[in-house]
């Protein structure tokens, strides 16, 4: 019972976390004091042999050949298959659960009720479709699937809220204990009303974005295997340590008794940062059945219960003066993050200076699976709303929208200083050059025929600093092999390769000379891979661990060479005297001096090796068929920085992935709930549209290397601006503003019709 209550509390905690999702770029939280130590640096740019080069991911061939085993692929001896029974109702009281028929089915080894008909609050109710009611473990997946359907649940269906509008309507049924709508929050600066009065032009409109689900290719879940009181869990997670702590806490067992392993992971995008309830159920089934159990969600459950990007609505009034300086942005905003979960986003998007601004926000709670962090939480929504408003203001001014951005984008506070995290004034012209902005026509393609072409642009920012809590371990073995261990996880971004690059670069060895081991709670703590913190956390900390290990080796070698350890360098597979490189020995010879005692050195995150704050811009070139409403994106141009590029190939890969996901948000993806029952009608990949290979345009990426800054995270930035740039390009093509996402044929034809019957511009 307590566990169920905890689950809802976790939802409300997310609400608070949600309000902090979008820190202003310069205002990072004050970090705890850093461990003391010698000043740390990356090698001078000219000396780098691996960092910044295009390095293929080490596990690429294994993945391509199916040798890399993802959680979903793992089969343990005697393993059973678990399935969950989710509520078919979006809101219902649970009046009874009868497990007996399922228990009797041949092959069923364990059955659990997860709700209590006598329970209070969420314990005796389902608050959204898919809310877990019971679970089964059986010898095959098919038997488990049949067995959950034999569980007889008596539901009393209750009125459900499917949309924010339903939740906010005056005659809405009272569904949530603390009300269907949150208190209004207020953010303001300056006097918006006075500023709007002074504006030469004002734009007013209502803008909205849809609910997007993460749709990770590998669904959530894990495999749990007990050995006495010790639990090993293979989990598809973005945070092995977080998963361990969550599982241990839920099962009320010591954290020392839980080991979490994530060798390979098929995508999470924020939805796998928290520990997963289904893994706890899996562990309970495994205990009950006394056998390992695999419980992975199916695609439908994945859409329903593993989080989403909340919807966003904004009723905006924004003003600009006659000289093209933005003066005010006033927004009444709302959105829904599902059952008891927030829907925070901050407008105006913080890279543009609106001296006066106000946002009044409310969260509407609906009977849908609660939101979770989703790649750049709040940013794509805020970017879409703000960047579309900017283009509309530019139209009123009859000014090139690029010029409006150049006049109003944030730059260094002190004009004499260049702030490397605020490079938009440089990147906008670079992107414009690449896309051919000079050929852009004013709003509305004058070409005859149904196919209209247009261009648009948008900018983005993110933090991406490393976590001070990160720890790493590096071992040098007497045979010369090097082991780099850190309890991070590779969520598909190339972290395993990154660890090897840092270790090899530090030891002066080729990539093949080091072994990177990650994805295991037996390794030192690293944070969850969220918020784009991984590259900075892992690179800096592993660098320190490896330097510490290397320095121990120097201490062993120095007497043999008759120099001080500080005079030595590890380079080209040798330990040699910096000033007399011919004086030295091979790495292997040096390691032989260790005898039988390997070096094992730890590292703690320290300053100087990483940074925070990124800037980027994206441009879109689109074609819209105004007789069908179908938009095709022809080209996306992206200019993006991320501090020091550690591996150009995997960095580019991040940007490709972000843009494709942004394209899905712009055009296709939309979680559709039946308005009368709040059940999802498209919990699949058929009607939940995702870009396929033929829908992906040419993507032109310019990564700006900042070799002296140290790495900054790149996970979120590339997803932020795509939808805004595409929306502005569509308006530029068709001459009509579409103020909502996704830009479906329906939305485009509707906007074109409104224009014909009175106009939206």
């Amino acid at each position, binding site marked *: 019972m307590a566990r169920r209550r905890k689950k809802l509390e976790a939802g409300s905690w997310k609400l608070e976390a949600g309000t902090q999702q979008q820190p202003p770029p310069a205002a990072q939280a004050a970090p705890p004091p850093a461990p003391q130590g010698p000043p740390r640096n990356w090698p001078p740019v000219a000396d780098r042999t691996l960092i910044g080069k295009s390095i293929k991911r080490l596990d690429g061939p294994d993945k391509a050949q199916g040798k890399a085993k993802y959680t979903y692929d793992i089969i343990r001896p005697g393993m059973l298959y678990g399935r969950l029974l989710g509520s*078919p*109702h979006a809101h219902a009281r649970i009046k009874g659960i009868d497990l007996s028929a399922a228990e009797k089915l041949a092959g069923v080894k364990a059955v659990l009720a997860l709700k209590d008909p006598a329970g209070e609050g969420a314990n005796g109710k389902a608050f959204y*479709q898919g809310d877990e009611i019971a679970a089964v473990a059986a010898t095959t997946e*098919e038997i488990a*699937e*049949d067995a959950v*359907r034999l569980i007889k649940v008596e539901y009393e269906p209750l009125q459900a809220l499917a949309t924010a509008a339903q939740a906010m309507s005056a005659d809405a049924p009272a569904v949530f204990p603390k009300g269907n709508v949150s208190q209004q929050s207020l953010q303001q600066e300056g006097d918006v009303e006075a500023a709007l009065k002074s504006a030469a032009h004002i734009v007013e409109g209502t803008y909205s974005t849809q609910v997007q689900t993460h749709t990770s290719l590998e669904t959530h879940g894990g495999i749990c295997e007990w050995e006495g009181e010790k639990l090993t869990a293979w989990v598809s997670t973005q945070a092995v340590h977080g998963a361990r702590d969550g599982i241990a806490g839920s099962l009320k067992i010591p954290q020392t008794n839980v080991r979490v392993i994530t060798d390979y992971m098929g995508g999470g995008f924020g939805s796998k940062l928290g520990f997963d309830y289904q893994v706890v159920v899996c562990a309970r089934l495994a205990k009950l059945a006394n056998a390992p159990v695999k419980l992975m969600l199916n695609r439908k459950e994945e859409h329903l219960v593993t989080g989403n990007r909340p919807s966003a609505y904004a009723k905006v009034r924004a003003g600009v003066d006659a000289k093209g300086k933005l003066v005010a942005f006033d927004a009444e905003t709302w959105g829904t993050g599902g059952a008891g979960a927030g829907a925070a986003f901050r407008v105006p998007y913080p890279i543009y200076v609106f001296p006066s601004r106000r946002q009044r926000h409310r969260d509407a709670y609906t009977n849908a699976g609660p939101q979770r962090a989703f790649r750049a939480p709040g940013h794509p929504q805020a970017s879409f709303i703000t960047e579309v408003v900017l283009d509309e203001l530019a139209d009123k001014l009859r000014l090139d929208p690029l010029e409006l951005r150049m006049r109003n984008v944030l730059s260094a506070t002190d004009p004499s200083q260049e702030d490397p995290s605020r490079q938009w004034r440089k990147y906008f012209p670079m992107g414009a050059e690449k896309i051919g902005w000079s050929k852009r026509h004013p709003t509305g393609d004058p070409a005859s*025929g*149904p*196919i209209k072409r247009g261009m648009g642009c948008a900018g983005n920012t993110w933090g991406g600093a490393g976590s001070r809590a990160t720890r790493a371990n590096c071992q040098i073995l007497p045979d010369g092999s090097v082991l780099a261990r850190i309890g991070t996880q590779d969520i598909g971004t190339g972290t395993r390769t990154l660890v090897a690059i840092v270790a090899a670069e530090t030891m002066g060895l080729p990539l093949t000379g080091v072994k990177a081991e990650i994805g295991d709670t037996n390794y030192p703590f690293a944070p969850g891979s969220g918020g784009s913190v991984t590259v900075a956390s892992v690179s800096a900390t592993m660098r320190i661990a490896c330097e510490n290990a290397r320095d121990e080796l120097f201490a062993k070698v120095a007497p043999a060479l008759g120099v001080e350890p500080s005079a030595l360098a590890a380079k080209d597979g040798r330990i040699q005297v910096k000033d007399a490189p011919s004086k030295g020995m091979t790495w292997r010879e040096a390691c032989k001096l260790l005898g039988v005692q390997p070096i094992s050195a730890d590292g703690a995150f320290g300053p100087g090796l990483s940074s925070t704050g990124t800037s980027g811009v994206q441009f879109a070139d689109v074609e819209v*068929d105004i*007789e*069908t*409403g*179908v938009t*095709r994106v022809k080209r996306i141009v992206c200019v993006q920085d991320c501090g020091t590029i550690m591996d150009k190939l995997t960095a580019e890969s991040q940007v490709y992935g972000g843009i494709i996901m942004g394209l899905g948000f712009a*055009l*296709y993806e939309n979680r*559709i709930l*039946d*308005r*009368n*029952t709040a*059940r999802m*009608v*498209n*919990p699949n990949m*058929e*009607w939940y*549209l995702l*870009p*396929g*290979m*033929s*829908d992906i345009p040419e993507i032109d990426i310019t990564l700006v290397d900042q070799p002296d800054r140290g790495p900054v995270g790149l996970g979120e930035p590339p997803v932020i601006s795509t939808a805004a740039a595409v929306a502005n390009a569509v308006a530029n093509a068709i001459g009509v503003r579409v103020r909502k996402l996704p830009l*479906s*044929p*329906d939305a485009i*034809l*509707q906007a074109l019709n409104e224009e014909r019957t009175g106009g939206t511009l």
Partner: protein
Amino acid sequence: MKSFAYVNAAGEKEAVAALGPERGRFLPLAGGMDLLALMKDYIAQPDRLVNVKGLDRAIARTPDGGLRIGAAVTLTQLAESAEARRMYPAMTDAAAEVGTPQIRNVGTVGGNINQRPRCWYFRNEEFPCLKKGGSTCYAVDGENQYHAIFGDGPCHIVHPSSLAVPSVALNAKFRVVGPTGERVVDAGEYFQMPDRNLFGETVLAPNELLTHVMLPPPGAARTATYEVRFKQSHDWPLAFASVALSMSGDTVRGARVVMGAVAPIPWRSPAAEAALTGKRLTEEAAMTAADAAVQGAKPMTLNSYKVQIARTAVKRAIMKAAGLKTV
């Protein structure tokens, strides 16, 4: 998935013998592209599957100069048949647009024509809709953006088949075998509106099997299919149209105009056909016919945009058949 028995049918007779008169209990399995998904979703729960992959999978010329396509022919086979492409581009264009290459490699002509609707209320087991014996069509005041713009219900699905539409436009005949022998059904008579048949979409009895699609000799007809879809990869058409125009010079002597994804069956438009007949084939004539085709459309609450898309599909299918630029 409910457990089921499996019968390998060596021929038509064995296949029909293994089927039975009760709807849904015994089902033929060809490519399985639709059936297995229905079974995994517990929408279909047959006791027995009858494998009919071994039936005729040839495309053959008929003595009268037409084409006879076995129901077990794969969509790829049809799309890539040079003969079919030369004779009936409306058919091969439609086959080439189905699903994904993987689906086309396995999915069959018979399976495509007989597949069940994609309506999301039908496909999700939580909704006991009319077609599943329930009392409500959830689409009426629900999420009907992809539903029918023609027809009076009570069920508002759109027919899912890409090949059904050109089959009607090309005046195809379907060979059907059953326990008492075989019969031949006009494609135009094969599909049934929900007021006549709520639990199925065709005249096929549960113990009958569609074995062949027979296309009449093409003569001087020009045919085309034009599909409007949102995504280029793996997506269903928002609306599409197949046309067959018999020509004399550049004048239309006779026309068959059929729309897809707009009604519970392939939706033939006599008004569009009349508008074309006797006219020279120009963009204006195509536009007039397209306007006529969507006259009388009755969109639901969220799908009036489909009227415009259907109109465009008809116009462009005619222009494509005429060899004119479609955009």
